[in-house]
């Protein structure tokens, strides 16, 4: 027996995909295939392996970029959170980066680093790093004063306090910041493929659009959104399993 909430989710999905199907049959636009056409195209893309090769290529800059921004972002965030002077010096740059439409830097990156992997990794990094660094910094700075005092009063050394108190206390928000960074990284990776050079999934989207194979185009877009959403949801689940009992504070964009 399905629970009420799952039943409603199914119903809701049925409505939306049904509406998509109907709109495609009317059709609302020559460029709007039906849901079933798109899903057929998706299964063909999966069946002949095109999609897997494409993701192999799309995910490379994303993975490399996230690894770099994860290490650098968390590292810088730690220093920002622990040191007031560094906070004053470095934080404003990330604050500006976080509010700014950094996508506008892409033409410049292409000029500087060409149209290869480097540029794409860079795009992922500039999108993902600010949110990771700022959340890490904030989490470290917001460690409850009383548990730090506790560490001091029980004779903890500076490194004891950072390693045994500040870091564990900050880790839920750091992890959540990392998740937001990955979410932004997805945007960067797709943007890079659509704007810099069409490779991977971006290539499927661009190519099928140019030959007016709209079902394949929709299928590719559908697949990347599903992939991102499923992956980010899994991360959120993991977060709840890891830090379930101690959710203090929220990561912010």
């Amino acid at each position, binding site marked *: 027996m399905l629970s009420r909430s799952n039943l409603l989710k199914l119903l809701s999905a049925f409505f939306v995909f049904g509406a998509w199907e109907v709109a495609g049959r009317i059709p609302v636009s020559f460029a709007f295939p039906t849901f079933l056409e798109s899903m057929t195209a998706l299964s063909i893309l999966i069946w002949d392996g095109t999609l897997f090769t494409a993701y192999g290529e799309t995910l490379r800059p994303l993975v490399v970029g996230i690894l770099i921004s994860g290490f650098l972002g968390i590292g810088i965030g730690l220093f920002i959170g622990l040191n007031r002077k560094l906070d004053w010096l470095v934080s404003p740059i990330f604050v500006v980066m976080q509010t700014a439409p950094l996508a506008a830097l892409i033409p410049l990156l292409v000029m500087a680093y060409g149209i290869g992997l480097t540029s794409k990794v860079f795009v992922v990094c500039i999108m993902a790093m600010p949110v990771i660094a700022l959340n890490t910094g904030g989490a470290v700075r917001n460690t409850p004063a*009383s548990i730090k005092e506790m560490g001091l*009063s029980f004779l903890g*050394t500076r490194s004891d306090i950072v390693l045994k108190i500040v870091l564990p206390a900050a880790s839920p928000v750091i992890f959540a910041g990392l998740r937001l960074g990955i979410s932004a990284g997805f945007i960067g990776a797709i943007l890079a493929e659509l704007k810099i050079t069409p490779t991977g999934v971006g290539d499927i989207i661009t190519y099928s659009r140019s030959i007016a194979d709209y079902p394949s185009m929709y299928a590719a877009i559908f697949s990347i959104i599903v992939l991102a959403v499923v992956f980010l949801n899994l991360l959120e689940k993991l977060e709840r399993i890891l830090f379930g009992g101690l959710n203090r504070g929220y990561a912010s964009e």
Partner: protein
Amino acid sequence: MSETKQISENAVEVRNVFKNYGDVEALRDLTLQFPKGQLTSLLGPSGCGKTTLLKIIAGLIPATSGEVLVNGKPVTGPGPDRAFVFQDFALLPWATVLRNVAFGLELRGVPKPQREEIAVKYIKDVGLSGFEQSYPHELSGGMRQRVGLARALSVDAQVLLMDEPFSAVDEQTRRKFQEDLLSLVQNENKTFLFVTHSIEEAVYVSDQIAILLPRPSRVSEIIRPTGFRNKDKDSIRRDAEYLDIVDKIWASLRTYVE
């Protein structure tokens, strides 16, 4: 008996301590003695600097001038001779009760088997046996403060600094805590410094009550209840001297209540 206690030496001495935050004078020329083996309350309205004074004694914040002696040695920072019990418990939410209680020893570098053995003993002493593997969020407020107390006891410091330890627990639990605290003072040969804003609580548990008045803080009065200290726990609250002292303190504090 109280005679001999009073002539015994002081565990903590505060001498002419000043504390300024910028232009704000938090403590002015504060001098106070805390006799060994006794419980001294710091009582006063909020903003009177009692927590500041306790943290200066703990070595968590420096005094602007003046000195604090613990067992005759000046305080320069936190030391093994003092243990702190926090108002908000200050437990590590990601650690079990066992690790929380052993955490003070962990920071002192005591090897794991030893420190856990000690922790288990104190967990039992505060009545939390069976909860060793629980996490703080699974415990009630009162139980959490027992963890905080066990942590402070397990490092075996001579002086226990308690910052409004019972203010975040409900009234019934609080009464039970106060009774337990009386036995603790009697059984452990330790000195207790106890910050509270509850008049009844201070009178009930203290050998000595220092009344602090605000802006800037100074000691206005020191009261030593003598008559009912050795009485049965249940009859203290009906003791005439107890009631008199409560009334007297209220009379001197009421003008400071906004």
